[in-house]
């Protein structure tokens, strides 16, 4: 495939993140980039998507004309049901999250620290809308992965030595997918796992606010 035909880095990141979802998992996809992962799942893929406003078994987003005014996901999109969906109240919805039944959540991030600390809900003085269900998703999902651009709009790293913003949850992030790389949070800090095709290790390290440990082989996505 020529460079011109290659999907852009964000598209490849979403496709790569989708492969993180194993058959049979119960998964919550956070608002924003994570929700776009759903379009990368095959229609016969066995997975149960959860939304915290009270639904397991999320079906495809509906066009306006077919939308049910009573059926939204936590981001406000008009979704649908599939065979085997269930509705429940908000207490039951988070019982599922907190009692260990959520295998995976994908979340957005303002900052991720090398110990896995996550900040994604508040920028003091600028943005303080409340965390919604984010704290419980980050703190209690069996596996927490972050989907994010590698740097903010000003080009500053979002992967840091330590977070500067108010935390969502401590030491919760397992893996980070960005437009540049796949990076794991390990006891030794950030570990590069994969590189976006066309990106160099040096570029990733320069865009990252903490040291990266490197694998022997570096696959690309």
């Amino acid at each position, binding site marked *: 495939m020529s460079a011109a035909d290659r999907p852009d880095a964000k598209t490849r990141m979403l496709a790569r993140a989708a492969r993180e979802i194993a058959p049979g998992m119960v998964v919550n996809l956070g608002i924003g980039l994570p929700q776009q992962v759903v379009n990368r799942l095959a229609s016969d893929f066995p997975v149960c998507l959860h939304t915290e406003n*009270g639904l397991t078994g999320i079906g495809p987003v509906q066009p306006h004309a077919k939308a049910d005014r009573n059926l939204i996901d936590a981001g406000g999109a008009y979704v649908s049901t599939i065979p085997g969906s269930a*509705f429940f109240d908000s*207490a039951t919805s988070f019982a599922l999250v907190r009692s260990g039944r959520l295998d995976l959540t994908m979340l957005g991030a303002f900052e991720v620290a090398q110990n896995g600390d996550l900040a994604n809900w*508040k920028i003091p003085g600028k943005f303080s809308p*409340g*965390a919604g269900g984010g704290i419980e998703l980050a703190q209690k999902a069996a596996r927490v992965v972050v989907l994010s651009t590698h740097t903010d709009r000003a080009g500053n790293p979002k992967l840091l030595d330590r977070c500067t913003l*108010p935390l969502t949850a*401590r030491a919760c992030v397992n893996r980070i997918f960005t437009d540049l790389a796949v990076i794991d949070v390990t006891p030794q800090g950030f570990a590069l796992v994969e590189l976006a095709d066309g990106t160099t290790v040096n570029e990733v390290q320069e865009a990252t606010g903490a040291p990266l440990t490197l694998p022997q082989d570096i696959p690309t996505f």
Partner: protein
Amino acid sequence: MILPDKTTSMAEAIARIPDGATIMLGGFGVPGTAFAMIRELVRQGQKGLTIIKNDANEQGMGVDHLLANGQVRKLIVTHIGLNPRAVSMFNDGRIEVEFCAQGILAERVRAGGAGLKGILTDIAMETEIGAGKPRVVVNGETVMLETALRADVALLHADRADPFGNLTFTATARNFNPLMAMAADRVIAEAENIVPLGELPPDQVHTPGPFVDHVVPLTEISEEYQVVRR
């Protein structure tokens, strides 16, 4: 034995709410929000209200009318990001806002509804939300005490109700409604459909009638309940 009829007009039911009341409002975004009763509350003009709700709706909808009309003293919520008026009133100190983790708000309301005094959790302990809340040791683990919440009034939006107050909710309009139904001294449910006693199968009732004080039939479904264009 027969079950009593709790059907009440909207004006009469809302008139039971005094100034300064604490009000629980069901709903997560549009689904399950009692828009019609909120409109009546705006019309009647009770002041100094504390509102317990997942969110502050969007500008021009639901809770926003109460904010615009200066009726709200405090919000206890999980997220107000979709309502710029709520954010700016909070930033200007014109309203007080207490933020909860979403599932913990659900549990605090439910605990109030279950006659419990509080719950013990490790959620949000190490965040700003948890700062200053009391710690308790359970089986050697230090966790956080979250107090139960109760309200003077809960305003619910049901899909179907019978005259005794048995309620069913539809799809994601259920959310906080059945929890708040247990947690207020006076529970008022507006319902899109009033059905005769015996028409709701007992296995399918979401909120049993004894929790509900007033059933308010909706004569029409306002624009706010419709699909929102985004």
